[in-house]
C-alpha cells in the first residue's frame, strides 16, 4: 500500500481499519503525516509547532494498544490541535506574542480525552491571534495560506486546523468556534467543520475568548469523521460548570438514514445582497439535491438577523476584554523590559504583546461595559441575544434544520480586510447566530467557484441535534464530487 497516497483521502474509519489489519503501524502512519506536515508547512504556515518526538512516543504506545486489541476509533491516528487549546508541556501560544513561550501545566479536557484514546497529537495549529478574526491573518506567526490557493486566506480563526486537514497534514483536527471560527475556515478550505451545541465539549483548557460563545469544534474531511472526533471529546466534565451534565448521545446514530421526510428550512435573510452569486447558487443547488433525496424544503424567516452581528460583537468583545485582562506579563507571558512600576509594566507588556485586532476588541468590549454605556450597549445586546434565540427555537419547531451559506464569499486574497476590520466583521453574518443561540452547526463543501475555490454550506439545528446534521451532511457527501486541494 502506498501510504503517502492513501493518507491524501483516507477517512478515520479507513485509517482505523488499516491499523487494525496491520496494513500499517501507527508509527508508519505518523511518519507519513509528519512528512507532509513538515514539507508543506513553509507553504501553508498551518502549524505553529510540530512535535515529532512526542508524536512518535504516542504512536509507539498506540501500536501497543492496537496489538493488544484495545484500539478505540482514534487510537494511533495523527491529529492536530488548535494553538489556543492547552497541551501540557507543549507550547500553547494563541498565535500571540503575549504567549509566545507559554508552556501549560495541564492538558485541556478535550486533549486529555484524545490522549486517553491513544490519538497521536502531531502539533499545534496556527490561528488568528486569541481566536479573534476570520482570516488567520492576524497571527503573530504570519498568516495561514489556503491549500487551494496559497495567495488566499484559509479563513479563521481555526485556519491552521482547516489547512492542515485540507492538505492532509493530519487526519483530523480540533478547532474552536466563537462566531464561526470552525465552520468558516472549513468552508474556505473545502473540508467539514462542526461546532457542537454550547456546553457539549468542556471549555476547561480552551484559552477563553468569549466565554458564553466559545466551543471546541471538530474538523475533518467528512461529517462522519467530525462525529467520530466529537464522540471522543464530548460529554460531562466536572471541571467546567457550563458543561452539560447529561451524557452525550452518540452523534453517529442513524448516520445512514438519509434525509427522507426531513424538513429543511431556508431562511430568506441569509441569502441577501451581501452573499455572492456563486455561493447562493451552490447552496440553492444543494437544496434542490436534498429535495431529490426526499427532503422537504420550506421557507423560514429570522427577521432579527440584521442585529446579530452587532449583538455578537458587543457581548463577545466585552467578555474578551475581561478574559484577556489577566495577561499582564507579571505571572506568565510576555513581560516588557520597559518600566518599573506595576502600571508601566502591565501597560507596556500588553502594548507589546497584543496585536491590533486584539487591542481593537478589548477597547470595544471595555467601551460596551463602561459606566454610562452598559445599558445602551451590553445590556441591549443581551436582550437581542435572547430574542434571536427565541426566534430560532420557533423556527426549529417547523423544520429539522436550516440550510444557509457558511460565508458570503469564497476565500479572499490575503490582506483584503486589513484596512477595514468592520467589513470583515460583517462577513460573519451566516455563522454568528449558532454561537448567539448556543446551537449546533456544521459546514460541509457544496461547490466550487469559477476560480476553483471551495464553497461551504451550513446546516444548523436545535440543541443537541448533531446526529441529524451529521446524517444530512453525510447524505449530501455521498453524491458530491469533492475536489482535493492538490498540494
Amino acid at each position, binding site marked *: 500500500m502506498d501510504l503517502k497516497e492513501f493518507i491524501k483521502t483516507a477517512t478515520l474509519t479507513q485509517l482505523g481499519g488499516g491499523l487494525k489489519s496491520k496494513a500499517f503501524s501507527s508509527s508508519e502512519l505518523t511518519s507519513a503525516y509528519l512528512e507532509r506536515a513538515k514539507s508543506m508547512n513553509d507553504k501553508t504556515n498551518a502549524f505553529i509547532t510540530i512535535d515529532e518526538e512526542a508524536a512518535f512516543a504516542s504512536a509507539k504506545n498506540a501500536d501497543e494498544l492496537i496489538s493488544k486489541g484495545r484500539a478505540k476509533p482514534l487510537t494511533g491516528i495523527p491529529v492536530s490541535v488548535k494553538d489556543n487549546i492547552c497541551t501540557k508541556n507543549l507550547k500553547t501560544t494563541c498565535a500571540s506574542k503575549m504567549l509566545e513561550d507559554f508552556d501549560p501545566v495541564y492538558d485541556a479536557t478535550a486533549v486529555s480525552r484524545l490522549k486517553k484514546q491513544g490519538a497521536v497529537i502531531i502539533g499545534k495549529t496556527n490561528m488568528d491571534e486569541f481566536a479573534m478574526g476570520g482570516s488567520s491573518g492576524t497571527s503573530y506567526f504570519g498568516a495561514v495560506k489556503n491549500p487551494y490557493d496559497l495567495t488566499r486566506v484559509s479563513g479563521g480563526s481555526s485556519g491552521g486546523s482547516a489547512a492542515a486537514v485540507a492538505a492532509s497534514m493530519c487526519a483530523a483536527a480540533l478547532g474552536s468556534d466563537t462566531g464561526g471560527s470552525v465552520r468558516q475556515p472549513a468552508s474556505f478550505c473545502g473540508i467539514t467543520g462542526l461546532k457542537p451545541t454550547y456546553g457539549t465539549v468542556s471549555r*476547561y483548557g480552551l484559552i477563553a475568548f468569549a466565554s458564553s460563545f466559545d466551543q471546541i469544534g471538530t474538523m475533518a474531511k467528512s461529517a462522519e469523521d467530525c462525529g467520530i472526533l466529537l464522540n471522543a471529546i464530548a460529554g460531562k466534565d466536572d471541571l467546567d460548570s457550563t458543561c452539560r451534565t447529561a451524557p452525550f448521545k452518540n452523534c453517529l446514530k442513524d448516520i445512514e438514514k438519509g434525509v427522507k421526510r426531513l424538513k429543511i428550512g431556508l431562511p430568506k435573510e441569509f441569502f441577501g445582497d451581501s452573499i455572492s452569486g456563486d455561493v447562493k447558487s451552490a447552496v440553492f443547488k444543494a437544496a434542490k439535491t436534498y429535495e431529490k433525496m426526499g427532503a422537504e424544503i420550506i421557507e423560514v424567516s429570522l427577521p432579527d438577523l440584521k442585529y446579530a452581528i452587532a449583538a455578537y460583537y458587543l457581548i463577545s468583545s466585552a467578555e474578551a476584554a475581561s478574559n484577556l*485582562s489577566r495577561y499582564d506579563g507579571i*505571572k506568565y507571558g510576555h513581560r516588557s523590559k520597559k518600566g518599573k512600576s*506595576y502600571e508601566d509594566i502591565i501597560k507596556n507588556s500588553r502594548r507589546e504583546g497584543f496585536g491590533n485586532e486584539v487591542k481593537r476588541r478589548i477597547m470595544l468590549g471595555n467601551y460596551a461595559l463602561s459606566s454610562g454605556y452598559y445599558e445602551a450597549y451590553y445590556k441591549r445586546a443581551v436582550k437581542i441575544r435572547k430574542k434571536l434565540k427565541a426566534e430560532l427555537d420557533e423556527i426549529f419547531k417547523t423544520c429539522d434544520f436550516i440550510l444557509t451559506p457558511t460565508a458570503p464569499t469564497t476565500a479572499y486574497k490575503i490582506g483584503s480586510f486589513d484596512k477595514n476590520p468592520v467589513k470583515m466583521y460583517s462577513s460573519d453574518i451566516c455563522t454568528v447566530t449558532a454561537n448567539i443561540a448556543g446551537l449546533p452547526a456544521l459546514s460541509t463543501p457544496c461547490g466550487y467557484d469559477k476560480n476553483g475555490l471551495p464553497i461551504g454550506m451550513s446546516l444548523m439545528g436545535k440543541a443537541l441535534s448533531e446526529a441529524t446534521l451529521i446524517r444530512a451532511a453525510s447524505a449530501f457527501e455521498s453524491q458530491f464530487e469533492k475536489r482535493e486541494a492538490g498540494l
Partner: protein
Amino acid sequence: MSYQTVIGLEIHAELLTNSKVFCSCSAEFGGEENVRVCPRCSGLPGSLPLFNRGAAELAVKAGLALNCKINNFSAFDRKNYFYPDLPKAYQITQFYSPICEDGYLNIGTKKIRINRIHIEEDAGKLIHDEKRKISLADYNRCGVPLIEIVTEPDIRSAEEAKAFTAEVALALKYAGVCDAKMEQGSLRCDVNISIMPEGSNTFGTRTEIKNLNSLRSIGRAIEYEFSRQKALLEGGERVIQQTLHWNDASGVTTALRSKEEAHDYRYFPEPDIPPIFITDEEIEFISRAMPEMPQSRKARYLSLGLSDADASLLIGDKALADFFEAALKGYQNPKSVSSMIIVELLRRMNDASVSAEDLKIKPDDLAVLCKMADDGAVSRGAAKDILKEMFDLGGRPMEIAEKGGMLMSNDSSAVETAANRILAANPKAVEEYKSGSAKVFGFLMGQMCRSLGKSANPAIIKKILEEKLNS
C-alpha cells in the same frame, strides 16, 4: 456648630469552608507563600472557576443569623480592575443579585439595618520588600470565600460602629460561619463616614476608610476622620469623596485615590458560573440546623437568673458559654456555676492567657467542685485552691480534696481545742474584741483557720470563737 457622624459599614468575613470558593485549594490561613494555589485561583489561561456550594450554605447561615431575607436566586458578576493581588484582573462577586438582603442586627435597643450580604472571592496578599524596592505577590489567599455585609448608614458614632462590628463577629462565630479573628484578617471592616450638622437630615459627602482590622482602629479612625471632616467644613472647604487608608501607627487617614481616579469596574454577569438556586426547603433545612444565636442565648441565661453583666460576659466568649452550659448539666445551679466561672476561672484564664478552648479543667469537674463548695464538703478557700490545681494540672476535685486533706471537718472538739489555745495566746486581741473592735475578730478567725488547715470549717470556727469570746 455641632456635627453628627453618619456611618455605614462594609464588613468582609472569611467563610469557614475547607476549600476556596472557586477551586479545591485549601482555604487555611498562613504558611509558605504560593503553595495553596492552582491554575484556577492563580488565573492561568484556560482555567475555569467551580463554585464551592458549601460557601452558599454558610452565606445562608450568615443571612439567617443577621435576620435577612434569603434569595432563592442569586448569581455572580465580574468586577474588573487591575491590581497585582488579583491574578485574573477581575474579582468574582455578586453585584446585581446578592444571596441575602434586608436584614438587621440590634446593638442594645438600636436596630442597625443590613442592606445585603453577598459572596465574593478574596484577593491575594502583597508583601513590600523595602530594601529591594519590590513588591511580591502571594496568591494563597486568592479565592478564599468571603461574605460582604453591607449596612445602611444607620450608625451614628464610633462606639456604635465598634459595638455593631463586635455583635456581627459574635453572631458569625455562633453561626459557625467565620472565626472572626480580626488580627488574622478573617474579619475586616471598611467604614463609610460623613458628617452633617446636628439635627439635619441631609447626609454630607462621605469618604471610605478601607481595611480596618481591629475594633480599636475602627474607633480611632472614625474619630480622626470626624475631626478631619469637621475641620474642613468649619474652614469653609468641602469634603472630597475619597478612598482612605488608616495608618494606625501615625493615627491619620491618607488618600488612596480620589474620585477622578475612581475605578470603573465594568460589572457584568459572570458567564462561567451558573446562578445559585436555593429552594425554600433548603433554607428551612439550614435554618433548623442553625446553632443558637448569642442574643437568644443571652435571654435564656437571664431567665436562669444570671445578671445582665454576667450573661453578656459569658456569651461574649462562645467557648466559655459552651463550657458553662456543659457544667450546668453536671450541677443545675446557674448562679453558683456562673459565679465560679466568672469570679475564679476567668481571672486565672486572663492571668495565664489561656483561652476557653484550651482549658485543662473539664466542665463536669467544675460542676462537682461547685456542688462540693455549696454542700459544705470543702470551704470556699479550699475550693479556690482546688480550682487552681485543676487549672494548672487538671485532675478531679474530690481526689484533690482528699489528697490535700481539704475535706471540711465537722469535728467541733478540734476547733474547741484550737480556740482555747489561740485565745489564750492572744490576750490583747481578746481585750480589743471585748472593748468593741469587730475588726480583730477577723484576725482571730485567720489564726484559727491557719491553725486548723485546709479542712477548717469556717462556720463552725466562727460559731465556737464567738461563743468563747462572748462568754
